[in-house]
């Protein structure tokens, strides 16, 4: 065993590309929490630097990432002063051309949002874990994913993990997607706090002796601000906000470029994750459309419906941005009703789906739970029966 200058062990790893790491490398089954799954993905992602400020339920993840740092799998790690500082530091570290990871939850995401929403425009290819939590007030630490609605319009790629396995796979894939030259924007991997982060599930993982290839700071659509790499005078982010001598068009085409980059990420979501949606029973009359933890409950309701012989299908939405509009439109073109269970009060997924299909009237708004409430499968079953014109004796 060799050691780093600061005394930490230096693991010997075989560095491989993401196709091999995700889709070919042999895996072994482990029974771990979602927080462990995210940290284990970071361990294999060959991360250069992690920065974070603790907040429940994210603190479990970043504590474990701290352990991963202590084991020598990450080069640098520190606790910032608060989330705005954390997210600003991530943007700064990105200028040095390194692979970055951070995570936060609910109010922490809100506090860091000013910096986070500028990442896309600054072409910061960082990976952001979002372990969802109620946004105050009143104060609560419980799971509720309304914070994702605030993230949906900043240009970042957003993946929503259903369970511990997704959390592991999506986090690993996120690094590869973020760093593609034609993407090069942040990728957020969200999953529900506690329901996933603090609960155990089976996760198939490849050996920790494998690692993702080193970050290539040269293969970038913007110059890395690196004084060792001439020409050093190149300013990476032109001050286009000085509109007294700027064309307004530069800002508009810049915004287009961010959303084009977001759109280009879709082919990599197919490459690494098999596509942005998972569909069960594509010929069904009624579909449950859900993402994240709600997809786990939707899957259970779909299973019940199969047992009862009902014409029900399931669409699990893995990618929130880029939103799989074409894919969903294609699957539901003959559907009679879409039921959209969610863990938030505003129904952001429901709104997206309504805006996506030509016949938004078939979308059932709910069931929704929030404030940390669990999502009983029976609530979804009730909506299924209503949509099919059947009686259902709802008992909770």
């Amino acid at each position, binding site marked *: 065993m060799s050691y780093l200058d600061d005394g930490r062990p230096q693991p010997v790893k075989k560095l491989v590309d993401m196709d091999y790491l995700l889709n070919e490398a042999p895996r072994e089954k482990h029974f771990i929490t979602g927080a462990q799954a995210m940290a284990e993905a970071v361990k294999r992602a060959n991360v250069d630097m992690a920065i974070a400020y603790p907040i429940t339920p994210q603190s479990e993840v970043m504590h474990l990432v701290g352990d991963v740092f202590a084991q020598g799998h990450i080069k640098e790690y520190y606790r910032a002063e608060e989330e705005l500082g954390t997210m600003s530091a991530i943007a700064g570290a990105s200028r040095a051309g390194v692979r970055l990871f951070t995570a936060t939850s609910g109010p922490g995401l809100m506090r860091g949002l000013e910096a986070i929403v500028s990442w896309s425009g600054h072409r910061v290819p960082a990976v952001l874990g979002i372990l969802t939590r109620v946004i105050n007030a009143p104060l609560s630490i419980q799971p509720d994913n309304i914070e994702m609605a605030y993230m949906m319009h900043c240009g970042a790629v957003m993946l929503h993990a259903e369970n511990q396995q997704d959390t592991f796979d999506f986090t690993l894939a996120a690094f590869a997607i973020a760093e593609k*030259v034609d993407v090069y924007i942040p990728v957020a991997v969200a999953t529900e706090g506690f329901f996933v982060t603090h609960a155990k599930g089976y996760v198939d993982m490849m050996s920790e002796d494998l690692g993702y290839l080193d970050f290539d700071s040269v293969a970038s659509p913007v110059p890395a601000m690196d004084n060792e790499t001439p020409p050093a005078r190149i*300013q990476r982010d032109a001050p286009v906000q000085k509109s007294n001598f700027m064309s307004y068009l530069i800002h508009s085409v810049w915004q287009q470029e961010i959303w084009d980059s977001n759109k280009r990420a879709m082919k990599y979501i197919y490459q690494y994750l098999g596509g942005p949606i998972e569909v069960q029973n594509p010929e069904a009359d009624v579909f449950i459309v859900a993402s994240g933890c709600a997809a786990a409950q939707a899957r259970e309701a779909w299973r019940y419906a199969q047992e009862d012989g009902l014409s029900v299908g399931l669409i699990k939405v893995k990618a929130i941005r880029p939103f799989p509009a074409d894919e969903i439109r294609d699957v539901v073109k003959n559907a009679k009703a879409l039921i959209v269970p969610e863990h938030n009060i505003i129904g952001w997924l429901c709104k997206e789906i309504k805006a996506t299909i030509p016949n938004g009237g078939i979308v059932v708004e709910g069931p929704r739970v929030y404030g940390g409430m669990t999502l009983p499968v029976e609530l979804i079953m009730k909506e299924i029966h209503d949509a099919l014109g059947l009686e259902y004796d709802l008992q909770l």
Partner: protein
Amino acid sequence: MTKIVTEGPAGYMPDSAPMMGVELAPEGQALLYGNVVTPEEAMRDAAIALLTKDNPTIFPGPQVLWDWKEDVAEKSAAILDLASEIPNCRIIPMPDYRPKYPKIDVKAEINPNHPNLTILDNKIKACVFVGVHCHYANLTLRMIRAGTDCYTVALCAYMGHEEAMASIRDLHASDILRFKEIVIEERDKLGIKWETTLPPENPSLPKEDNSTLSPADYGEYRSLIISRKGEHVAEVE
């Protein structure tokens, strides 16, 4: 072939090429007017544009202006070879991406924040971008398509550019030399007589004289070159 991406002016606030459904060409292929074609097909169309349209110009970006990476010198030499075979071709660099204040010298350079100024002032109807970082190349190509009627060619070391009329990806020096050969072939077919001639020197850049440099010339960066009080610098890289 249906031309999706064409010379502009596309208008006040045009959709981007990806918004119009154009996707980057896969490895081994190129883009021509937003369609996936062979690199040869794209190069031939680009060559004809450079040979038949007014004031053909090559815009080299920072990645080929400084000898900062192993393959750059070879690539830059190939660009000069290419320029020498295009009749009356000029070279106008995009040396960096900062907005030019108070006013850009449109004879001397092009800038991604207002590239249309250089295109319009020089009446450039066909151009080649090479060595510009992809983000800035996309912004530039889109603004040119929005506001000018210039035919754009993108020679890209990575995945190419949807916004250009012709886009070549994974560019190496050998690809530039192949493009040069195609230019010569098409030139002969068109019956254009031309002796291999390097483009004229950039007209506006003053001759550099480093003999009178002082720390003051480094402005806000002067602290980087002046040793601190009591500091003795014995070694430099």
